[in-house]
């Protein structure tokens, strides 16, 4: 089972490799990828250095081109594909059909993966991309139960990558436009959910805080509460006279305890979320997951997550809490 870790910059890439990642995934410095944040991602020089660092240690580098170009921006995505084809990238992670088609035709030898933003949730969808574009792997949206993941694996030859840890999208990825409804920008069109320019943290006289997105109140905190980044699906709203986390609480996905079952299901790779996080986060999470996968590989029947691993992961989780998400049926 391959461990795929996030790298928003060169120090994170090195941290991932040094702590046991089998592969890292990165993006260019523009809206061609779904972590289009200021100060993040790789320019020409840094990409070369990153690839060299990884390849010297026999690890892989994947490049995410996982947003959706519109006609006016098409040439930027086309250039990004060509750029990726010219450097020694191990796989391209693509969401858009048009971009996928271009990459396959222009660079027939490139390994292609279907991004989670491609929103393929059934083996019929996955096999479509294999048939037309010979994809080698698909990253599954975080909407399937463990049983459904297994059924999907059983009905395709495409390698399956699932999310193991990190910020949790509660909506099916690639088809959520909550962010653009509030701000005008979405992961699909802009490469970011709740873009920073639309976020406001407003201190209140009583020590509390309001978090807003383009003026819309996403959450209101007391003085003794820690405010979370205002993502719409993690806010507190009023439904039917009750104010609560109507969609989901601020929480991170953590599937460490499901590792033996993911092995049994035939999952090929585990993905860690968090290209926007610090090199320290990447190092910490990568180290825990490396140890866990190695231990599980030795004997999956006796595998149990160690309590210090869980503590380490909880420390870097949203709201300091974790969930099994959709893998665990009662969550749904």
């Amino acid at each position, binding site marked *: 089972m391959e461990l795929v870790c996030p790298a928003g910059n060169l120090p994170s890439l090195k941290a991932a490799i040094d702590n046991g990642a089998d592969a890292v995934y990165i993006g260019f410095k523009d809206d061609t990828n779904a972590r289009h944040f200021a100060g993040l991602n790789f320019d020409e020089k840094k990409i070369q250095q990153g690839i060299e660092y990884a390849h010297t240690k026999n690890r892989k580098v994947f490049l995410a081109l996982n947003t959706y170009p*519109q006609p006016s921006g098409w040439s930027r995505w086309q250039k990004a594909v060509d750029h990726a084809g010219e450097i020694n990238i191990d796989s391209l992670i693509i969401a858009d059909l*048009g971009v996928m088609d271009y990459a396959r035709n222009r660079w027939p030898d490139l390994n292609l993966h279907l991004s989670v933003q491609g929103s393929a949730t059934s083996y019929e969808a996955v096999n479509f991309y294999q048939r037309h574009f010979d994809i080698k792997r698909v990253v599954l949206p975080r*909407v399937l139960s463990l049983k459904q993941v297994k059924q999907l694996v059983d009905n395709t030859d495409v390698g399956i990558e699932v999310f193991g840890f990190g910020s949790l999208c509660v909506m099916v990825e690639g088809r959520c436009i909550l962010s*653009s409804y509030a701000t005008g920008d979405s992961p699909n069109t802009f490469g970011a959910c709740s873009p920073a320019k639309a976020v406001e943290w407003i201190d209140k006289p009583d020590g509390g805080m309001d978090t807003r997105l383009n003026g819309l109140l996403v959450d209101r905190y007391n003085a003794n509460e820690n405010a979370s980044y205002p993502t719409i699906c993690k806010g507190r*709203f009023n439904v039917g006279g009750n104010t609560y986390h109507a*969609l989901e609480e601020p929480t991170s996905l953590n599937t460490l305890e499901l590792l033996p079952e993911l092995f049994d299901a035939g999952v090929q790779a585990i993905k860690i979320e968090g290209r926007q996080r610090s090199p320290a986060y990447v190092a910490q999470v990568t180290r825990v997951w490396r140890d866990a996968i190695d231990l599980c590989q030795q004997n999956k029947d006796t595998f149990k997550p160690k309590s210090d691993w869980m503590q380490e992961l909880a420390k870097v989780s949203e709201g300091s809490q974790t969930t099994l998400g959709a893998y665990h049926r009662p*969550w749904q």
Partner: protein
Amino acid sequence: MRLSLGSILYYWSKDDTLAFYRDLADSPVEIFYLGESVCSKRKQMRTQDWFELAEELESKGKEVVLSTLALSEADSDIKTLHRICDNNHFMVEANDMGAVSLLEGKAFVSGHSVNTYNQHTIKLLSELGLKRWVMPLELSKDTLADLLATKPETVESEIFAFGRIPLAYSARCYTARAHNLQKDDCQYRCIDYPDGMLLNTQEDQKFLNINGIQTLSAQTYNLLPELDSMKTMGIDVLRLSPQYRHMDKIIDLFDQCINNKLSTEDASNQLEKLTSSGSCNGYWYGKAGIESKAS
């Protein structure tokens, strides 16, 4: 420009559903999209019932298109998908790439939850059989103009012109959550909310609408005021998305404007009274979807 009626996004009783279509069978709507596109647990109307309704509407001279689920997860979802896509008579609206996969080689419609953001995607789908394409909701009129200028001639365009905006789909049921229930024991609570459940901010600003596993906008997307400029763009079909009440009147207002029997200004004033939680059109202008801009 022809009018279409999108599939019902909410969970209505079988009686309500059949009565709704009976009332609209002689309306100016030319294209009916039928089927369950949100939650596979909803069984008031079985797949067979949709087929029977489809035949009935077809016998009245309507074009009928069968809509598939936007979010397929279980094996049983795939079985239903096969049954719909293999029907060999009615055209099918693919609402995810699994459906596109099964419809390859047949004439099909791509729904707004299939990500068609650029000319290359539309061209590729047209080579697989795409007959009509519904533009994703977050795209603007400027992008639409670019797409209309470059799309293959054989592909018709359809624009979502009225209704609450489908914004997201999840494994989790939010209607069940609002009642402290899990999805597996949802007790079909969504049938009590024929127009969904309103979600407000803590400042009582109307924001979203919960409809089972789907999240909609609270505001109604309304392009009626834009109709005059839309007529010159080369749009083939305008889609109206059902709400529980007044759909007959809403259809008539659009029809009268298309046929120049009523000004869009007068019609818009009348339409505003038939919707709840206000209207929006920000996406059309390339802005935040919730915004409302005068045309």
